[in-house]
Each structure stands twice: as C-alpha cells, then as structure tokens.
C-alpha cells in the first residue's frame, strides 16, 4: 500500500478560514498601511508641535462616527456570511445591502471632511500631517468604494465561497480603519 500523497495532508495553511489568496491580500494591505502609519509617526518625531497644531484642523468627531458606521457594517457583512451557511438568500442580500449602505454613508462623511478641509485651504502641501492624512485616508476610502462594489457582486452571486471572499475584503477595510483612525486622528 502506498503512502498517502503529501499534497493531500492538511497543513497549517489549510486552517485559514476562507480563500488563501484573500489572506495574502489582507497581509499585503496591512503591510502597506502599516508602513504608512509608521512613516507618519516617524516624520512626526522631527516636528511634534507642528503635528499637534495641524491635528486641530482634522475632524475627529465625524471620523469617530465613521468608526461606528464601519464596524456596524462589518457586523452586517459577518452576519451575511453566517446566513450564507443556511442559504437564506433574501436575508443575505438585505444584510449586504445594509452593509453597502453604511459604506456609502462612510464615504459621504469622508467626502464632507475632505471638502471642508480643502475649502479651508488645507492641501497635501500645507503640512506633512495633511500629506499623510490625504494619502492614507484617501487610499482607505478608495478601498471602501471597491469594497462596496465587491459586496454588490457578492449579493448578486451569493455562493458561500463568494460570500467568504467578499466579506473578508470588507473586514480587511474595517481592520485597516481601526488602526488608521486612532493613529491619525487621536495621536497625530
């Protein structure tokens, strides 16, 4: 009798829930945003007083509301995946539509923040804090927009595998925000 094929043995990678490639993406995104946050605090070392003054022009209250919006949206996406196991298609779709709606509200609030700051003459050139602010939160907002599109596709083609991949992307956006928000708005 031949030994079982080594390729068929379960390895630690097989323990990961969902799609392996999505985890590769999650780690990649964490590295990119993580490097950005470390660079942000690294540049702050040279001018802590300037950063403290510049931070007073940010909008922590709307950003705090956006934190609640995003984690609630993540909750709805996680519930959609749970409903996926029991194939409750209508409930899955409504959960995802609600998650997407909250993502839309997040972008509207972010748009208000950007519009107000640009209206006050604050651009990427004004101070290094704002360079990082526009770059990191703008890049994150682009991910929110992409995530809304992905959730829409998953609501349409809602197989369990699609739900796992789509909601994992959405949670990655959530994960990045819970690191971004405190560093930029509270510590910057």
């Amino acid at each position, binding site marked *: 009798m031949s030994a079982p094929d080594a390729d068929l043995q379960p390895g630690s990678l097989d323990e990961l829930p969902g799609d392996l490639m999505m985890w590769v993406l999650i780690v990649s995104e964490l590295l990119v945003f993580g490097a950005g*946050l470390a660079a942000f605090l690294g540049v702050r070392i040279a001018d802590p007083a300037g950063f403290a003054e510049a931070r007073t022009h940010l909008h922590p209250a709307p950003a705090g509301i956006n934190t*609640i919006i995003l*984690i609630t949206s*993540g*909750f709805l996406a996680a519930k959609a995946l749970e409903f996926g196991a029991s194939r409750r298609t209508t409930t899955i779709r409504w959960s995802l539509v609600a998650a997407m709606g909250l993502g839309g509200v997040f972008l509207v609030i972010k748009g208000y923040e950007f519009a107000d700051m640009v209206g006050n003459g604050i651009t990427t050139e004004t101070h290094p804090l704002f360079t990082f602010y526009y770059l990191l939160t703008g890049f994150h907002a682009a991910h929110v927009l992409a995530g809304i599109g992905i959730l829409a596709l998953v609501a349409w083609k809602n197989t369990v595998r699609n739900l796992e991949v789509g909601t994992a992307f959405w949670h990655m956006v959530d994960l990045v925000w*819970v*690191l971004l928000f*405190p560093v930029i708005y509270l510590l910057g």
Partner: protein
Amino acid sequence: MKTDPILRAWFSLLVLSGASVAAAFIAGAGMGESVVGVLVLLFAWMKARVILARYLGLWQAPFWQSGFNWVLGLFCLLLLGLYLAPTVMV
C-alpha cells in the same frame, strides 16, 4: 441564554472605540502623553484582535490567530515607540 459571538464582537468594538476616544479626550485634561499613547494603541490592538477573530473567523485557526495577534501587538509597540520618541529625546 447564549449570546451571538458576532453580536458580542460588534458590541466589544463599540465599547473599545468609545474607550479609545475617551482616552484621547482625557489627554486634554492633563493625562500624560505616554499614558494616552499606551491606552489608544492598546485599544486599537484589542479592536484588531476582535475583527481578526470574529469577523474574519480566525478563532477557527488558533495558530494563525496567535501569529496575527503577536505581529500586530509588536507593530503597535513600534508605533508607541515612534509616538513617544519626541518625549524621550527632549
């Protein structure tokens, strides 16, 4: 009655977010910069742990959950070091 783990995770995230903002506001009331930095980053790390475990389902993979927790914890320590560097260097 058993509580839904995802609902519990959502509630934990709300509480931790509130605590994080409260810690930053207390900074204005004279709490030391280092204490605020420790608290805000500790809460951020705890929130990341909840999202990884419950929203992303890593509770099913203890090996990976532990690995992510360690790496994110070390990353938060790096951020804390960078945040406190100006205070230490004065």
